[in-house]
């Protein structure tokens, strides 16, 4: 583990990113059509520094909405080459970085590794940006994270106004800044200021505790609780597709005649088709079962399998649910039911 600390002038960040661009593909937050998203940049000054969080989660840089697993023609398969280029993501929020740790448990499991995901993870260095001003919908601290948590990060940047404090979390993070001329030695004042900002930010985050929720859910499978909860749910996939930890997918063939490709697309437990058997039987026939599955998976099954809840408190589903079905309220209701 690395523990180097530096500072960099805010005005130098673009130059630092320009340097990184020489040997890496660099993803950074940019604003396109009014929405913030993580996209490859061509120049360092394209990166947005003053953003709250991206609309879509950066999980898609590792697990895209849609990707070709292999192509084929007349029965001959051509495998999509695994990612080899070196990549850097600049500006990832700690909540989203934590989600990668959770996704690793699934995609980089001891029994089967997902080669596409694993290659992208191995070749991507993640520079985090601490959240000085968490949103009112953020609840990272209640699900094991924090606005300055470092899980999943290689470097953590903290905005100190005219400069950033830079903390190395891993060796490969440290390697990115070690030889860069843009970084200077940090001062005690920098470190203290960061601690202050972090403490304030942490204070600002609130939300329902997930403590005991798993145990509560253990006994709730048949609870009438689920009967009405789902009534207003539209059954769309906004929550699951924007969620940085949701990882369900579909595998389909797209082909014309003997030529085509096998594609992996995001899929959602909120769709009836997700579990529909070819026979017509559906083990989760209505919104009730599907909503229950989403909550149970995040707060019970994932905990049973991996020891952590599958939620990082980014608040995307809270903000974007078309009917304001607020997961925080659901957690609270489970806790108190």
């Amino acid at each position: 583990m690395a523990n180097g600390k530096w500072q960099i002038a805010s005005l130098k960040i673009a130059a630092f990113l320009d340097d990184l661009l020489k040997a890496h593909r660099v993803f950074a937050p940019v604003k396109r059509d009014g929405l913030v998203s993580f996209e490859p940049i061509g120049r360092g000054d394209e990166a947005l520094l003053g953003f709250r969080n991206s609309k879509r989660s950066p999980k898609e840089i590792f697990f895209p909405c849609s990707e070709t697993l292999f192509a084929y023609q007349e029965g001959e398969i051509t495998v999509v080459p695994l990612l080899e280029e070196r990549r850097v993501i600049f500006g990832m929020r700690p909540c989203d970085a934590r989600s990668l740790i959770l996704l690793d448990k699934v995609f980089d499991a001891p029994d089967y590794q997902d080669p596409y995901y694993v290659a992208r993870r191995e070749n991507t260095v993640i520079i985090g940006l601490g959240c000085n001003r968490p949103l009112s919908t953020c609840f990272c601290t209640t699900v094991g994270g924090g606005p300055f948590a470092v899980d999943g990060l290689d470097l953590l940047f903290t905005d100190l106004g005219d400069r950033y404090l830079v903390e190395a979390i891993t060796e490969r993070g440290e390697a990115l800044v070690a030889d860069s001329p843009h970084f200077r030695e940090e001062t005690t004042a920098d470190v203290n200021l960061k601690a202050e900002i972090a403490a304030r930010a942490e204070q600002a985050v609130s939300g329902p505790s997930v403590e005991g929720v798993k145990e509560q859910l253990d006994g709730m499978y048949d609870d009438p609780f689920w009967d009405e909860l789902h009534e207003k749910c539209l059954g769309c996939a906004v929550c699951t597709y924007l969620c940085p930890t949701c990882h369900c997918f579909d595998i389909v063939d797209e082909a014309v005649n003997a030529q085509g490709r096998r594609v992996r697309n995001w899929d959602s437990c909120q769709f009836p088709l997700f579990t529909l058997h070819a026979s017509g039987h559906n083990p989760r026939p209505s919104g009730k079962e599907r909503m229950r599955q989403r909550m149970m998976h995040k707060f019970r099954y994932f905990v049973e399998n991996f020891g952590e809840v599958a939620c990082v408190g980014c608040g995307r589903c809270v903000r974007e649910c078309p009917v304001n079905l607020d997961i925080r309220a659901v957690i609270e209701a489970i806790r108190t039911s």
Partner: protein
Amino acid sequence: MRNPYLPYPVVIRKITDENEARDIKTFELVFRDDADRDSFTFRCGQFAELSVLGAGECPIGIASSPMEQKYLQLTIKRTGVVTSALHNCEEGATIGVRGPYGNGFPMDMLEGSNVVIVAGGFAFTTLRSLTNYILHPDNRGRFGELTVIYGARSPGELIYKYDLEAWAGRDDLQLYVTVDAGDEAWTGLVGYVPTILKEAAPSSDNAVAAVCGPPIMIKFSIPVLDELGFPPGRIINSLEMRMKCGIGKCGRCNIGDKYVCKDGPVFTFEELQNMPGEY
């Protein structure tokens, strides 16, 4: 690391029509590459992801016995996109196979026990694999008495008639083949599987029951087994689920914290009682 999403190419060596409706066929597959065959070592009760390029993939239980590792037999009913595409394939065609996946039947429990196989309709496939496995001369001694109760809607819908005939001539298994409704030519048993099971009344002493069939058959067979004294932990069941990846990632086949593709598809009835009823 091998890419787990890549199918092994296999050639359809033989296609056998299994039923009168001709919507169930058994496909005998041989690996195009010997190395692939050697890495595909399966056990009874496991399944494969069958792959037809252009149509997609579907999970199918392996119907042949692991004693025959040179080829795979999969019995497939024409139902959805992939199975229809498979039914349109001809002998000699190349398709793909991934796997083997799943836990398979619990051999440590089955070995040394009397085995009662209860099967209905088309769901006989992996239990047929198990039956042939037990009957193999190398294995027969490691299992106790074998009872097979198998039923279908009509005589024409019985699958593996060639096996049924071969087994009928043996004295090391008790075979009950029944149909819901017979025809003029039918001279065998008539009655639903749970009824025949009740009449056959296999002993539950040191026995394990393996049950696969339509939900309604399972529903009525379980109480009979219970009456016969089979504890839930000695009744095993193989589940069907919509699956995509087969390796516990895509997230759709879970029942509670269990993934049917990885932790199943075989569960004891006791395990099922402790799982959500989402299957």
